[in-house]
């Protein structure tokens, strides 16, 4: 990357950040929450981009990491009183990492399609466990809890408002983005990309491909768990629906719509998807099966625009 394009990149980054920081001050309450939600789903999608876009493995099981992050946070918030935000994050991440360790150990033995199916089946295992283990997880009804306070030990502690919550989520998402970006540009990330391009050659050069893949899945799962914690804090409940396959599917849709292998793309894709959904349900009512038109758009994009919105924009800008 040349110095010039690097500078343009950082200017763009600062402008987008500035817009997102100011946004909650201008937007009405509903859209403020909506924007926060886009950021959270975007973080989930971005975490899976590390696998889809950079390592060439499609995970259809990200709902497991997301959901376990949620339930981990729920456990911390219900066990300790007063509820502590940092403990929630810690528990959520620990749960997601544990699950990611388990899933990655088995699923990375397989490639391509087999990987996708195995991750899907693992997420279904956790769904069945959470759905049927009513005493601990609340079963179908899930768990409800109160929102923790925004606190920095020794500095201050204040209840979340929707604006501070937005800033907090934004900070976490932006931080995760920078970390993920650094990871993809590191030597480790380069190896992941070479696995995507040619796994056999990467192995032949002497890289322990399996180990790299396991670490990639675990990293991805950790960030997905973080997204789950944020979602739990925002919505004050955890439900088995979020461990269900549909969430994984939507994560993949966000990625493809926004553009895989760009990190920013998945957030754009999440925004695009959620906005379209909101628009459709406002135009045709709540019962409208929004996934039918969105599914058509998704299929059309795979055939005609496989690089997604961001990839398309990037090519168009470079022309």
């Amino acid at each position, binding site marked *: 990357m040349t110095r010039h394009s690097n500078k343009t990149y950082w200017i763009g980054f600062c402008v987008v950040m500035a817009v997102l920081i100011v946004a909650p001050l201008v937007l009405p309450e509903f859209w403020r929450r909506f924007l926060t939600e886009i950021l959270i789903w975007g973080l989930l999608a971005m975490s899976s981009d590390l696998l889809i876009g950079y390592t060439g493995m499609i995970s259809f099981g990200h709902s497991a990491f997301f959901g376990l992050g949620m339930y981990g946070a729920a456990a911390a918030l219900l066990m300790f009183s007063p509820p502590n935000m940092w403990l929630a994050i810690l528990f959520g991440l620990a749960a997601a990492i544990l699950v990611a360790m388990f899933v990655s150990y088995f699923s990375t033995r397989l490639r391509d*399609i087999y990987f996708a199916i195995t991750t899907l089946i693992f997420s279904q295992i956790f769904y069945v466990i959470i759905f049927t283990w009513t005493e601990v997880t609340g079963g179908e009804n899930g768990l409800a809890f109160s929102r923790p306070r925004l606190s920095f030990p020794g500095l201050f502690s204040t209840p979340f408002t929707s604006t501070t919550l937005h800033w907090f989520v934004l900070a976490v998402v932006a931080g995760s983005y920078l970390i993920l970006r650094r990871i993809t540009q590191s030597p480790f990330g380069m190896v992941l990309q070479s696995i995507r391009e040619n796994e056999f050659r990467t192995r032949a050069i002497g890289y322990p491909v399996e180990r790299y893949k396991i670490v990639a899945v675990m990293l991805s799962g950790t960030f997905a768990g973080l997204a789950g914690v944020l979602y739990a804090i925002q919505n004050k409940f955890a439900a088995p629906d979020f461990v269900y396959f549909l969430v994984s599917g939507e994560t993949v849709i966000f990625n493809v719509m926004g553009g895989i292998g760009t990190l920013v793309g998945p957030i754009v894709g999440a925004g695009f998807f959620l906005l379209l959904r909101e628009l459709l349900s406002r135009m045709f009512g709540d019962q409208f099966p929004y996934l039918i038109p969105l599914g058509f758009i998704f299929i059309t994009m795979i055939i005609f625009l496989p690089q997604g919105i961001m990839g398309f924009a990037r090519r168009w800008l470079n022309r």
Partner: protein
Amino acid sequence: MDMLVHFFQSIPFDQIVIQSLNGIVTGMILALVASGLTLIFGIMDVVNFAHGELFMLGAYIGVLVLASTGSFWLALILASLVVAILGAALQIVTLRPLIGRDPLNTILATFGISLVLQNYALWQFGPVARKINEPITTHFNLFYLEYPWYRLVIAGLSAAIIGSFWLFLKYGKFGVWIRATTQDRVMAQAMGIPVPWVYTGVFAIGAGMAAASGVLFGPLVGVNHAMGLDWVLKAFIVVVVGGMGNLGGSIAAAILISLLESYASIWVNPSQAVIVSFVVLILTLLFRPTGLFVPTPK
């Protein structure tokens, strides 16, 4: 010694016989679903995420035909034909443009198709489950149970469909084309086999088989829009355990997994019995990632 005697006495033999029968019946249907899936994979390198939805649509078309004509067997045939044509259309519109691209694209495309079909069914038919009446209502006595003959008929019919499909692959002209394409796509094309149409035909056959199993299975449980995912998951497990693209392996794995699940449901409730098939999958992945029923690779 006493403990051993007690253990053997505590095994409920009658239940085991009943559950074996149940396991074989669901196993045969699962084999029918999975053989379509594994056929499509083996030939086209396409993992068909929409397979469960084709199963579900078949069941719904069965419900509609049954309601208007009253004939179960007509429903079975019409549902398979309609879904086979739908499958061919889907393949031509969405999968054919993707030939030669990364196979991951085709997973995503079929996933999109499954979303559309599933939500269409929900929108069209509503969330309430529909019922298909059994065409054969007689029972026979099995211990304390009245076991419906229909279940045995399902198993027999599934076996017949799979068997005739196997014969077709072995001796039919199109079947020979299919096998040739599986073995060497480029060479088959060079010999004048219209490979793109073989793809379309295979997808249609797989779709028709899924629809047939949907209609056959309809009477055992209700027909609803979400039934596809359960089946496609099980079929995926079967296909991985049996070895992808391996027809015989899939059938054996389907019966093995269904039997294990039936036995498990003697002791735990059926929604937890699903975990048994997950465990089989994990063990297979650990010790035999290429599939249980394929020869050890040298």
